[in-house]
């Protein structure tokens, strides 16, 4: 650690900067999909970009307050959480509906043999 980093860490109480090369934009597919959904909903007029920035920064602050070191790698987690909240606030889908659907996908995944596409229809409880 350089002298500057020592001083800065002492002053701000934060870790050194995470670094990256000009590597992949998204680390996992879900990050890309969460990104694209927010951009699309904004373009559909579901929320303004100012509303989006406010929701995202509020979520980042909340996560930091409960101990997220917030080194940039958790960014799309905050992004998705902010998106879920805005979607609920705007009446597009309730938190309960999202949770029920998450559980359905989890059951569908477990019911899908390895290597085959996971489809929502594979949820054993969906067949009624």
């Amino acid at each position, binding site marked *: 650690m*350089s002298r*500057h*980093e020592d*001083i*800065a860490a002492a*002053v*701000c109480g*934060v870790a*050194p*900067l*995470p670094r*990256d090369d*000009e590597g992949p*934009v*998204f680390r*996992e*597919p*879900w990050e*890309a*999909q969460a*990104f*694209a*959904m927010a*951009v*699309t*909903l904004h*373009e*559909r007029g579901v929320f303004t*970009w*100012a509303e989006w*920035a*406010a929701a995202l*920064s509020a979520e*980042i602050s909340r996560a930091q307050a409960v101990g997220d*070191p917030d*080194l*940039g*790698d958790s*960014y*799309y*987690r905050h992004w*998705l959480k902010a998106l*879920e909240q805005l*979607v609920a606030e705007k009446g*597009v889908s309730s938190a309960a*509906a*999202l*949770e029920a*659907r*998450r559980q359905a*996908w*989890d059951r569908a*995944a*477990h019911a899908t*043999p*390895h*290597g085959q*596409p*996971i489809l*929502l229809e594979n949820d054993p409880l969906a067949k009624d």
Partner: protein
Amino acid sequence: MHDHRNAEHHHRSHDHDGHDHGHEHEGSELSEMALRVKALESILVEKGYVDPAALDVLIETYETKIGPRNGAKVVAKAWADPAFRDWLRQDATAAIWSLGFTGRQGEHIVTVENTPTTHNMVVCTLCSCYPWPVLGLPPVWYKSAPYRSRAVMDPRGVLADFGVTLPETTEIRVWDSTAETRYLVIPMRPAGTEGWSEDELAALVTRDSMIGTGLARDPKEVRP
């Protein structure tokens, strides 16, 4: 193109434990984050808000077409063409749009020029506002709390972390991006590049130099 639909099929997130992996050879596993994204996406598709194919096109665009090379062309043109540089000073958004770099998060771009006496650095202290059309999506450190807080409190220390040391007499200005205004730093043109083409000049412009955490490349790296 990547398959964004099923590429996470075998992914098992480290934070998703509690299952006995040994007994689940038959089924598949999605990470907690992948499940939440699939839940949201499938509901949005059903309600007609999003089209999965359009999402894939959008993702591919940001992964392969929109990136810091766009900004490098803007900087190279500003170096080579005084009329374009003046246009950037007056209305950077329009000047940048004239090169075809339009679109999301590029509605209001302001360029800030480095000089021997002033160095500019960009941050978004609240979230991660960033000029997507010219720089693509932000690097991980730009989105991190240490950068967001230290860029304002200790810009010289941050620059040292990036290996940049400026004379004590150089003033460092830190610009805080917002949902409305995005900044693009025009780094100083390296000496010894007189007569270079815009393409050659663009090769000197790094992403970090346009955020202000770096300088343009040494011309000898490009044309020994």
